[in-house]
């Protein structure tokens, strides 16, 4: 079941993964079982995904992340919101992030 993502929610990176930057590329390495489907699964993100990942710090709300992205990327509010909630849902499903708190 997909969790509904509210704009006041705060997320932190999970201890089940380790984020690495290799040659300018964000690589997320699963640490515990079940994050990837295979033992040698890795995850990478595109530029937008990397920007969102970098803002998921256990402090910023979804609203603040959307606002930060609006300054960085030329895109409409609706598109950015959809991207942020989409990626947060995906990362939650894969246990790469955890809900830290709601402000």
């Amino acid at each position, binding site marked *: 079941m997909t969790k509904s993502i509210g704009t006041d929610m705060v997320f932190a990176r999970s201890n089940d993964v380790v984020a*690495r930057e290799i040659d300018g590329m964000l690589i997320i390495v699963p*640490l515990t079982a079940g994050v990837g489907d295979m033992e040698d699964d890795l995850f990478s993100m595109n530029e937008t995904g990397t920007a969102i990942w970098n803002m998921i710090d256990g402090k910023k709300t979804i609203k603040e992340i959307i606002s930060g992205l609006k300054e960085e990327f030329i895109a409409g509010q609706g598109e*950015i919101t959809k991207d942020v909630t989409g990626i947060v849902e995906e990362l939650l499903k894969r246990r790469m992030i955890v809900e830290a708190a709601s402000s």
Partner: protein
Amino acid sequence: MRKELVSFIRLPDFALWKKIGDNRIPLSFDLEVTARCNNNCRHCYINLPPGNKRALRDELTLDEISKIADQAVSLGTLWCVITGGEPLLRKDFIELYRLLRSKGLLVSVFTNACLITDKHLDLFKKYPPRDIEITVYGITRKTYEKVTGTPGSYARFQRGIALLLEGGIKVNLKAMALRSNAHELPAIADYCRKRTRDFFRFDPFLNLRFDGNEERNEKIRAERLSPEEITAIERADPERSAAVKKRCGTLEISTPLRRSDNRLFQCSAGDNSFAVSYNGLFHPCSSLRHRDCLFDLRSGSLSEAWFDFTPRALSRKTTSREYIEKCRICPLMNLCQWCPAHAYLECGRMDEWCEYFCRTAHARASAFGPVSA
């Protein structure tokens, strides 16, 4: 904004593998955590007894390994192969494994499986390894223990492998083709293929000892199969046979070599991987043991070893006419075990022609040709 924000990468397809040629990133390393082993295999190039005081004294500590791994991670390393000796002999193996995984490294473990316990099973279930590779020396007690020289080892191996497989831990199984187990090799292959996760492979090429122990080298030579026996077992195995034939298809050297090119290292050593031995020495490749190609990580950093030392060590040139006239221009090079590292282990010089390698390469070419040698 693009829709595909997160993507999966399977390691074999990893985009960085394609980029490394330009950037020379050390993406993987072999970490030899001990030279000690619970078995005493006749063919082994490294094993020392479990209680060997010198090996114990010289082994990298957990703290030293942590510092080396940190440096590797900062240089871009993604994958570490824990090897030995037998890694599970280390009392701190579980801590060591978790430490490497926690740094964001994919970890493979090479083991004989004899020392696997429920604790290892729990560890591998919680923090999956990239893979576990186990060597199967025989599938009868008599053969297995003839190779390992260790009474009771076959029962321990069977127990260890059953624990892993019944616990849902997938393993890759491999074999060494030896004088002592050649009669059982087809049965070993069958056993392995029924249980292995991805592949089965066997290796008939035995390195001589890293420590140069001549008494042990005699035993290794005695375990070597003749070139004709090697080609016979390769031909008898369809998978192996197809792989060797494929190599035969690219035997000719396509680019003319410059007469002035007398570089010794024409291989990929030091391009994107390295090895660290149990005593903290850096090697551009795991078999390369010549003193001029070793860098002590207890005295200097991995960055120095990788960026300064390795290019210097591997720029070595040779004036050996025998090497230049026989090996460097040989079209059978990719069927041959010859390389500077193996030549050093075999003959004590990195640029020396080695009769056994040469005879084996020619036997393989004759068996699998057509080749213009």
